[in-house]
């Protein structure tokens, strides 16, 4: 396995006056509410451990009060951990001296905040420059870098505006530009899009993913929104009462919840935004293009099909024919090529269900699935999609073309 960028080992944060006593009770297996009752201390984060790999978007998700915002602040020590280790490139943040910690914060870690946290007395450009300004980089140099960063998030031309003159979405772009300006390895995003309205939020998620294609930063993204987590997360850690309950890819969490809590969490989720074509795809009968219509019709009768997909020698999809057309072609002594339907809408194995509804509605034939090499993989039948959305996607997945 690849080397981790961030390694978190048994990190615990207790808020209150007697953290040692509370830690002892934690070790005895007492719950957050029991410890609060007995000692008056609040368990913020309970022995969290995980690795984040370079270039991945690691989502930490949980409801409010689950400790996710505390956890992200332990990563850059905005909150001092009670115990445990946070290694960034094998260096333990927790043991660093103030100067070392400042240096890591200036060069390796940037943060984007839920309420943007822009400085109201500084212009957009000055805000973006802040991380460079505190490093005493010359005015010309930091202005150039900040301009680049603003351009990246699409805010060119707003340099001289003040944050209060911008909309929420634009303010958070400034927040993102400020975080990117000092070219950090790691971006910590604390509910970065939660304060935005849903449409803008979706745009920002798309843009983050697009930026990430070229930047390949390591991103730790905090959210309480499962849809958001599933959309942008390469892996998701689910938190409850300060503990991490499950870590896994979106599919793993959806299809195989670790416990009741995760299951309850994910039961309301819109499956069409998680499941892909490969989950609901079925094997399909194909026929080589050099066969005649009689063979095709015979095959369709045997298999009780109303349509058939035509491929070339390399399993590349050429088109489809229907049984009616095949019967007419036999009478008119035509070839398969004459009755071929070629303008079929297609989808890829990774296409989300939600993105294929329009194509399904526009086509009377099942949707063919082709991979990046145009190879025919299978078809999507409406029944299988409905079945998957109803929750028995494991059934339909059995029919998958391997």
């Amino acid at each position, binding site marked *: 396995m690849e080397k981790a960028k961030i390694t978190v080992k048994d990190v615990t944060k207790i808020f209150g006056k007697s953290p040692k006593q509370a830690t002892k009770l934690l070790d005895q297996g007492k719950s957050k509410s029991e410890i609060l009752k007995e000692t008056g201390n609040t368990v913020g984060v309970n022995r969290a451990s995980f690795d984040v790999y370079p270039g991945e978007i690691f989502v930490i998700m949980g409801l409010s009060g689950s400790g996710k915002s505390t956890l992200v*602040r332990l990563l850059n020590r905005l909150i001092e951990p009670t115990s445990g280790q946070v290694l960034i490139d094998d260096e333990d943040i927790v043991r660093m001296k103030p100067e070392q910690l400042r240096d890591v914060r200036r060069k390796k870690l940037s943060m984007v905040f839920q309420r943007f*946290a822009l*400085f109201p007395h500084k212009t957009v450009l000055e805000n973006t420059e*802040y991380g460079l*300004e505190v490093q005493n980089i010359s005015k010309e140099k930091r202005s150039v870098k900040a301009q680049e960063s603003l351009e990246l998030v699409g805010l060119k031309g707003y340099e001289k505006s003040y944050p209060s003159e911008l909309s929420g979405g634009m303010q958070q772009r400034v927040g993102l530009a400020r975080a990117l300006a000092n070219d950090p390895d790691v971006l*910590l995003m604390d509910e970065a899009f939660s304060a935005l309205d849903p449409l803008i939020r979706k745009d920002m998620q798309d843009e983050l993913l697009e930026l990430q294609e070229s930047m390949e930063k390591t991103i730790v993204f905090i959210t309480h929104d499962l849809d958001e987590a599933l959309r942008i997360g390469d892996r998701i850690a689910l938190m409850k009462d300060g503990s991490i309950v499950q870590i896994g890819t979106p599919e793993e969490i959806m299809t195989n919840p670790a416990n009741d809590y995760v299951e309850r969490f994910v039961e309301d989720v819109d499956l069409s935004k998680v499941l892909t074509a490969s989950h609901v795809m079925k094997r399909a009968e194909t026929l080589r293009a050099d066969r005649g219509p009689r063979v095709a019709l015979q095959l369709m009768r045997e298999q009780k099909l109303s349509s058939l997909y035509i491929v070339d020698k390399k399993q590349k999809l050429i088109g489809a024919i229907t049984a009616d057309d095949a019967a007419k072609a036999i009478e008119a002594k035509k070839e398969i090529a004459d009755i071929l339907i070629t303008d079929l809408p297609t989808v890829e194995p990774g296409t989300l269900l939600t993105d294929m509804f329009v194509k399904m509605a526009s086509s009377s034939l099942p949707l063919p699935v082709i991979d990046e090499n145009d190879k025919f993989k299978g078809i999507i039948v409406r029944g299988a999609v409905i079945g998957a959305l109803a929750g028995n996607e494991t059934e339909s997945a059995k029919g998958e073309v391997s």
Partner: protein
Amino acid sequence: MQLFPKIPLADWVDSFVDMLTDNLEPVFDGITSGIDWFVEGIVSILAFPPALVLIAIFTILAWWSSRWPVAIFTLLGLLLIDNLGYWDPTIETLALVLTSVIISIILGVPLGIWASQSDRVRGIITPILDFMQTMPAFVYLIPAILFFGIGMVPGIIASVIFAMPPTIRLTNLGIRQVPEDLIEASNAFGSTTKQKLIKVQLPLATPTIMAGINQSIMLSLSMVVIASLVGAPGLGADVYRAVTQIKVGIGFEAGLAIVILAIMLDRISQNIGKTKN
């Protein structure tokens, strides 16, 4: 029917003050001549141009910082003071106020910053400030006379003690009121304590600090009038004379001049704080 003999608090304070006067005389003398020199400087600067030129300058200042009603009030008010023949004492009072406010800022803002950085410092300073503000202002005049003699300087010292607390309090408050997420942002980007203070906290606290300074100006104006009891010059001396000689008319004129000065200083200082942001 006293269970315990009276605690000789007054005697203790007396002997403490005696000890200070005996041991620290050179220090007090130095302070006295320093303040004397400073106030004389301000008076000579303010008295140098003809009254009308200074009135014009104040009017422009009022117009720039506030809106035209304040400018018109300043113009008419100062012309009235000049017409009534209170120009020189007004300038003296103004010099006293400026001096004590400048000292209050020089001492108060750093103290306020210090208090904002540490809960312990704040815990020590707050009761002292309460004491300074609630002790009747006249009481300060007594040791001030002993330390600094009769005249202008004890008046200024007393008004600094009386006027400084709001500047300290509101500097501390303004810095502490900077939203937590901005402090977090500043920390997250690796600012030092000093960078955070200069680049984030102080600029954002400026309106609050200016409100504190405005309060200090008003308090020191009220105090320099009282300071005429120990021989401080200015409008207060005219009021004091009018009171002792029961001259209602003169008392009203001098009092009116103080009111005009007060309103002018209040509006100008308030609005300078606002226009900066």
